[in-house]
């Protein structure tokens, strides 16, 4: 086993909670190093614990790549790097530890590319599949931009600047490049030169509109510049820089020719055909100069520029893979799960099935009728003796949420919209009798509590079965307790409240339980049915929010609020992209907002739980790191909603 070989034991993996994907990438990277350079691999092995203490698995892979790329042909230096005896190893370590992950930047990058290009483009991270000395480059299609996960401190000490430049360059292509031109019989070298000239042309166009982007591109073109090199990549890097920086002096004839040809056309930047002509001339010159071109080894010199597969279609051969198969159906994935749960679900009576759409952020498309929500009768407390004993519930009193009403009038007020006739008469009498009159002679409307409907949506997924440390209870138990506390408090304050739960088993089966409905009081039976919930399956939050929204639309209260309580990021066994269900849940919450509802989220998560902030927005999100404080947090959230 590779893991054992490299000292990355299962315990270590567990301990550092590396996600499955990153773990796999790390395993592949160590395997690759083992093949390539056993000495360095054993040096790494010795330092693995120390490195994992400082870096998460994905950052560690990037650190390894940095070493392999820094010293591709110098085994001794590479050995020092992996033995942590090289200064650059420590520098890279610090940089990687500091670097924000690509995944965390994607939401803002998606907005940025939409703002720059005025098109909706999904941004995704390319998985680190090929642990290779050759760096990855972004891949652009008309719907997506795939950014490399292997941007390391070698490419940019601040990865965010690199992401930003990649996004701007992609926006330039999307706005100004004709996509998918037939490559025809063009030689690979011609394609590469034409693409490089096209990159420069669209950047010029973008910089004309958005002059600030020049400063985004120039540093990367400068660092990728190989000033003395005469290889194809070096010449292209020199041309790239010459075309963007007029102050740059190059002594190469070909580079200067490229620049002067390009300059003749700067007044007609939209004339794509002319640029293609000069690029063909330049490619031809390179051919005459006997410059060698290796299509397999060549990558676009500037790390932010995409691989230009966006520009071309190739006859007969397959185009570079640009859009991955995003959604993986999994009908058999559930087979391995314990049968007892399935049996248990089978005994729960199905009430109705409804289909809801789901948002695919990568396609920018609402897939219609994608998820099936199955409403089930709440798990019947058939064996009440097996239920946990009811916990004595804390009494909570909710604050009054008031607004003006005409049905209650306050008399004898110092200010108001109408005179209080009785008070006015007394005032007149007092004054005539020479007494000092009472000036409070107005009436104004009183206040009334705004009616509110609350729907608590409990996550019943398997992970809520985890025991809360020091409490001896599961997260689900805490959820149930908090739900009951809030139900009691809200109904005694005169609000309408319901408690529903959900768990999902692929998109075909999102179980939805109406544990306590509106109009029902929390009695023995409903309390028992809440307590009877068990933790199982996964968290497809978007579908549950959509169903809750449709149930909520029947409510007539002035304020309608859905509160989702969950213990982790939305997930399901047929979805492999962490961001997918987060985006979907966000869209579901936005739709609820448009329908006049407020969606709030409470994440019982020791981690940052940034996903919840993304789903419901910062204003309506609470992150509870200590589950035992959940009831208090719920009340605090309620106050916030009531006040807004």
């Amino acid at each position: 086993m590779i893991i054992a070989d490299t000292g990355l034991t299962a315990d270590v993996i567990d301990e550092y909670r590396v996600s499955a994907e990153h773990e796999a990438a790390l395993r592949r990277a160590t395997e690759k190093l083992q093949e390539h350079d056993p000495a360095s691999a054993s040096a790494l092995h010795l330092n693995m614990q120390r490195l994992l203490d400082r870096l998460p698995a994905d950052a560690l892979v990037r650190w390894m790549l940095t070493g392999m790329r820094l010293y591709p042909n110098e085994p001794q230096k590479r050995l020092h790097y992996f033995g942590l005896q090289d200064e650059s190893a420590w520098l890279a370590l610090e940089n990687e530890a500091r670097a924000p992950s690509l995944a965390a930047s994607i939401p803002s990058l998606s907005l940025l590319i939409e703002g720059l290009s005025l098109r909706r483009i999904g941004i995704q991270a390319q998985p680190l599949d090929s642990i290779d000395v050759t760096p990855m480059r972004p891949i652009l299609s008309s719907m997506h931009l795939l950014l490399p996960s292997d941007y390391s401190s070698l490419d940019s000490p601040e990865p965010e600047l690199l992401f930003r430049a990649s996004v701007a360059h992609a926006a330039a292509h999307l706005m100004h490049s004709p996509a998918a031109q037939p490559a025809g019989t063009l030689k690979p070298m011609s394609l590469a030169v034409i693409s490089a000239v096209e990159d420069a042309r669209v950047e010029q166009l973008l910089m004309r509109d958005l002059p600030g982007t020049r400063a985004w591109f120039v540093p990367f073109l400068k660092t990728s510049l190989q000033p003395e090199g005469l290889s194809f990549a070096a010449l292209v890097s020199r041309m790239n820089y010459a075309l963007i920086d007029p102050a740059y002096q190059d002594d190469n004839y070909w580079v200067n020719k490229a620049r002067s040809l390009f300059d003749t056309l700067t007044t007609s930047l939209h004339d794509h055909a002319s640029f293609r002509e000069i690029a063909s001339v330049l490619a031809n010159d390179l051919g005459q100069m006997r410059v060698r071109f290796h299509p397999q080894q060549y990558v676009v010199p500037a790390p932010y520029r995409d691989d230009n597969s966006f520009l071309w279609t190739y006859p007969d051969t397959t185009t570079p893979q640009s859009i991955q198969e995003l959604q993986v159906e999994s009908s058999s994935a559930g087979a391995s799960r314990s049968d007892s749960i399935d049996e248990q679900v089978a005994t729960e009576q199905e009430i109705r099935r409804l289909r809801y759409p789901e948002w695919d952020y990568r396609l920018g498309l609402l897939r219609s009728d994608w998820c099936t929500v199955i409403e089930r009768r709440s798990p019947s407390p058939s064996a009440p003796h097996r239920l946990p004993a009811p916990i004595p519930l804390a009494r909570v009193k909710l604050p009054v949420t008031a607004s003006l009403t005409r049905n209650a009038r306050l008399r004898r007020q110092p200010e108001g919209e109408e005179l209080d006739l009785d008070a006015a008469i007394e005032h007149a009498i007092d004054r005539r009798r020479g007494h000092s009159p009472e000036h409070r002679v107005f009436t104004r409307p009183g206040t009334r509590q705004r009616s509110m409907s609350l729907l608590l949506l409990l996550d019943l997924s398997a992970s809520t079965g985890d025991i809360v440390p020091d409490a001896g209870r599961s997260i689900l138990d805490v959820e149930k307790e908090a739900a009951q506390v809030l139900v009691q408090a809200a109904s005694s304050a005169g609000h309408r409240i319901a408690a529903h739960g959900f768990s999902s088993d692929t998109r075909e089966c999102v179980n939805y339980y109406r544990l306590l409905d509106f109009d029902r009081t929390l009695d023995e039976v409903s309390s028992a049915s809440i307590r009877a919930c068990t933790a199982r399956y996964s968290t497809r939050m978007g579908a549950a929010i959509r169903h809750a929204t449709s149930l909520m639309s029947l409510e007539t209260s002035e304020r309608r609020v859905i509160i989702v309580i969950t213990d982790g990021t939305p997930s399901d066994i047929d979805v492999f992209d962490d961001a997918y269900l987060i985006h979907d849940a966000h869209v579901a919450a936005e739709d609820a907002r448009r329908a006049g509802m407020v969606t709030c989220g409470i994440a019982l998560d020791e981690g940052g739980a940034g996903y919840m902030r993304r789903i419901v927005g910062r204003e309506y999100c609470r992150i509870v790191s200590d589950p035992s404080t959940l009831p208090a947090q719920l009340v605090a959230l309620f106050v916030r909603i009531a006040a807004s």
Partner: protein
Amino acid sequence: MFSDLDSYRLTDEPFYRPAGTEVAFFEHAYAHRLPVILKGPTGCGKTRFIEHMAWKLGCPLITVACNEDMTASDLVGRYLLEAHGTTWHDGPLTTAVRSGAICYLDEIVEARQDTTVVIHPLTDGRRILPLDKRGEVVRAHPDFQLVVSYNPGYQSRTKDLKPSTRQRFVAMHFEYPDEAVEAAIVAKEASVPIELAAQLVKLAHRTRALKDRGLEEGVSTRMLIYTATLIRAGVEPRESCEATMTQALTDEPDVIRALRGIVDAHFA
């Protein structure tokens, strides 16, 4: 209280750059004294438009900013206690009705629905305002016109116009003007070069593309004028945009980062 109508007359021409035929259209509506709703996103020039029209038509303009606590009495008037008894004081609406002004109810949806019902008799063929507390029916002055505005962007269940109210109005839809017109407006209002104004307008268009993708509304023309004013005063452009756009529009960190990127891209 509202006797001196001269203070409601606009003496100087408020700057307004028409984006279409709205001026001529409003003149027709005014000629027949039809009540008008001005719809449109915040900061696109609704209030400025009505000021301009009031100036052009030579009418006094009485503006009421509606809010949730506003009652019908705040519009029509109330009895107040004085030394020798009670006296009736006309509210802004009654003043406009009696004296023939344009009454402009800004952001009408902010007022509660029962308040807005008082305008109903004024907005149909009757053109009367019954003052039930006073036992008086005020017939509208021939020059009186009612204009209301609202922003359909953030409707919620509790904040929407009743059909019975909105059907009484001629509705005029306002949008942010075309790029060239908007740039000219910003350049004129903030006294900045047209090139800077055009660049700011391009920036605004890009933020408007993010509406409903994290932003409730994009950058408005009014915001652009603020930005340009600060830049003219010597504030560094990025800093000015940060204060008047990025931070003013949102609190979400992801959106803030994206907006900063968009702003940064626009300035060399």
